[in-house]
């Protein structure tokens, strides 16, 4: 089957100029490259939450599970544990993964299950027409906080580091080459990988200029060193004004959750036999 453009006939309903397009184009390119190297397209499964970001499930012509708001992670875990040979990639929003479904993210990192998280972090709830999100800065005037949010944001990378994630990266929707490199490395990383994408929402929260002035790529950074990773992750807290580092902050090789399960199968006859045996031992 030749599916090089990986498009579907679903009409695209993102706003023109939306940062989600970079993520879409980036992932298609990377999947096409991987297809020719190690990973055929049928081994890819996309899991999406609900939000603007999640529409990506309709736009890429690979296997997908378009799930519900905040719940990509457990679905992806089930798929990965059942079929460890697959590459399972979640596309989730900041409201979705860092808000509604945060518990799952922490536990997946703790398990170091080999799935990839791509977070479309536009730092607002966009599909519901603009409310503050877990990564919006304090004072953020969304429609549920017209006087300005009185909460400070979380730093998702710091939280993920503390939760034992084994691959942490950050990119932006403007920097496609870096973004593609991050996608590629995250997918190939064996273990729990998260790429926080500073995705510009042109309609509600256009931080294009803001990011352009502050981002820089990590250089001479030792991603194997957790203390160095923490320092770099803490440089910008998603709230105050600071330089914003991009690239791979942390990477570590560790045993993964799904590889602990034995792949053996018990056939029907053996199962029936064992049930009888159990009952005979229960007199």
């Amino acid at each position, binding site marked *: 089957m030749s599916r090089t453009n990986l498009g579907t006939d679903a009409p695209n309903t993102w706003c023109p100029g939306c940062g989600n397009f970079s993520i879409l184009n980036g992932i298609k390119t990377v999947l096409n490259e991987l297809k020719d190297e190690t990973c055929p397209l049928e081994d890819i499964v996309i899991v999406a939450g609900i939000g603007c970001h999640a529409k990506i499930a309709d736009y890429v*012509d690979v296997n997908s599970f*378009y799930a519900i708001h905040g719940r990509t992670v*457990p*679905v992806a875990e089930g798929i990965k544990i059942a079929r460890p040979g697959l590459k399972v990639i979640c596309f989730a929003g900041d409201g979705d993964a860092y808000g509604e479904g945060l518990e799952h993210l922490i536990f997946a990192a703790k398990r170091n299950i080999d799935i990839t998280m791509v977070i479309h972090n536009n730092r607002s709830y966009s599909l519901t027409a603009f409310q503050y999100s877990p990564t919006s800065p304090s004072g953020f005037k969304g429609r549920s906080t017209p006087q300005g949010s009185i909460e400070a944001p979380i730093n998702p990378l710091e939280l993920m580091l503390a939760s034992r994630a084994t691959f942490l990266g950050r990119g932006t929707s403007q920097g496609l080459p870096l973004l593609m490199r991050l996608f590629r490395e995250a997918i190939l990383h064996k273990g729990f990988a998260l790429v926080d994408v500073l995705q510009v929402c042109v309609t509600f929260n256009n931080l294009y200029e803001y990011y352009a002035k502050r981002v820089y790529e990590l250089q001479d950074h030792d991603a194997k060193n957790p203390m160095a990773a923490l320092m770099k992750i803490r440089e910008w807290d998603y709230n105050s004004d600071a330089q914003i580092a991009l690239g791979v902050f942390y990477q570590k090789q560790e045993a993964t959750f799904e590889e602990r399960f034995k792949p053996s199968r018990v056939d029907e006859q053996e199962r029936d036999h064992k049930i009888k045996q159990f009952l005979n031992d229960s007199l």
Partner: protein
Amino acid sequence: MEDFSVLTGGKAGFGIDQATLILGRLLNQSGYRIYVYRDYPSVIRGGHTFSIIRAAQTKIAAHRDKIDVLLALDRETIDLHQTRLKDGALVIYDSETVKDLVLPGRIETLDLPIGRMVKEEKGFEVMRNTCMIGAFAKAVGVTREVLERVVKENFPKEVDLNLKIALRGFDAAPAVKKIAPPPSEPLPLISGNQAVGLGLIKGGLQDYVAYPMTPTTPLLHFLAEQADHYSLKVIHPESEIGVILMAMGFAYAGEKAAVGTSGGGFCMMAESLSLSGMSEVPVVIVLGQRPGPSTGLPTYSAQTDLHFALNAGQGEFVRLVVAPGDLEEAYFWSAQALGLAWKYQVPAIILTDKNLNECIGNFELPQDGEMEVSAPSLWDGKGPYRRYANTETGVSPLAFVPRRDAVIKVNSYEHDESGITTEEGEMAAKMQDKRLRKGRYLLEELNRFPTVNRFGDDSRTTALLCWGSNKGVCVEAAQKLGLSVVQPVVLSPFPDDAFRRALAGVTKLIAVENNATGQLAHLIKAFGIDVDEMILKYDGRPFALDELETRVKETIG
């Protein structure tokens, strides 16, 4: 003694559960049929735990309130249960902990210095139970040989010491009663949770996912213990939301998965139940009821979530809800629920309660041939794959990742046949019809199963209407009182025709339910059938046989 009940009780932490199982097995191996009711508070140490072990000549699934033998390791057990003692009942107690006991003359007592005997044998405090078991065996006439065998088979640790202490109790006790066991072969003695677990395994279970919650926690423990044996993946994730979605991830990848919970956890699963309805990714939920609202009485029993099980989740979608009434039905329907959920790609709920989940009783496997489990419809690999192909039955053939020749897209949004989101009205209506159509075919297939049971002589015009774990107690009470019993096992899609057939000749219908509002009575009202009377009990305790008999007599006058 043809039909008698033994009560063993004490503080949580006394080892009452293990003593219960051993007492049950002693009588089982002596030829009796057994049913055990277990009553325990939601504490780990202290509180009062007890079990009633009933032994009878024929298979039973109900306990009696009145008891023949009381085993007491502390004073509280006697004080709390004295009113249950029948005339001529025997109380065996530890004279080291129970002093100055005065009981009415109609009660026989046997006091033994159990604590001292255990100490002399250098046993531990919990082994007082072992000594009591030995004394019980002798007092009622269980043979020394059966005692030795059962003790050896049932103590994973300190077998020799336990055996010594059991025999010390045996030798110290006089023979007081004489059991007259029928000459029958013992049958396996298992719990409701084990019956459900074995049924799921029989149905082809590959993965079990659960977050602990009484009364299905023991099911999680059982399957976790058995995981390697049956090659199951058993996982305990972060929450019930994670539980059900992980199971759906398994199902998307082609593995049969089930989850277990109680009402509170099921609340958290409701959104994903609806996702299962829309995405047509099957999931099986074991929903063990306990009294609510909210945390309620966590370790007690109720039948209060019937309408919740029937209606949970936004939107309209087909679901299978079955409420097995005893161990055999729990096994049978757990296997069938898995098969049917997959054949029709719908969520299935196995609705049980603490009384069924945690009872222990005799279990017989169905005869070969009775157990054919439905198989899913699989894609034949021809033409382009469409996950939601609109077929006559509404069932779209399944394919699982990874496949070279198919892109498999499932979706929580309304979608077209290939699984791409749509908001187009005509398509939305067409796909809703497709999904609902599956319900008709499911109902048709259910005709090959006993979806509604009728017990008792067909000529009886008064019937008890019950569901779930009340089956055993209703059938036995009805037999004594000359009544019929009607018990629907499938509650969704409701087998209206079979239900009407089962009601043939009934002119007076009495609902017996463990809830305060008569939930099954409400359900059948929607099908145009009214009950005449309701016997309801909602104190967390299931009906005891003698209690139900009295209430039925009061009701029919």
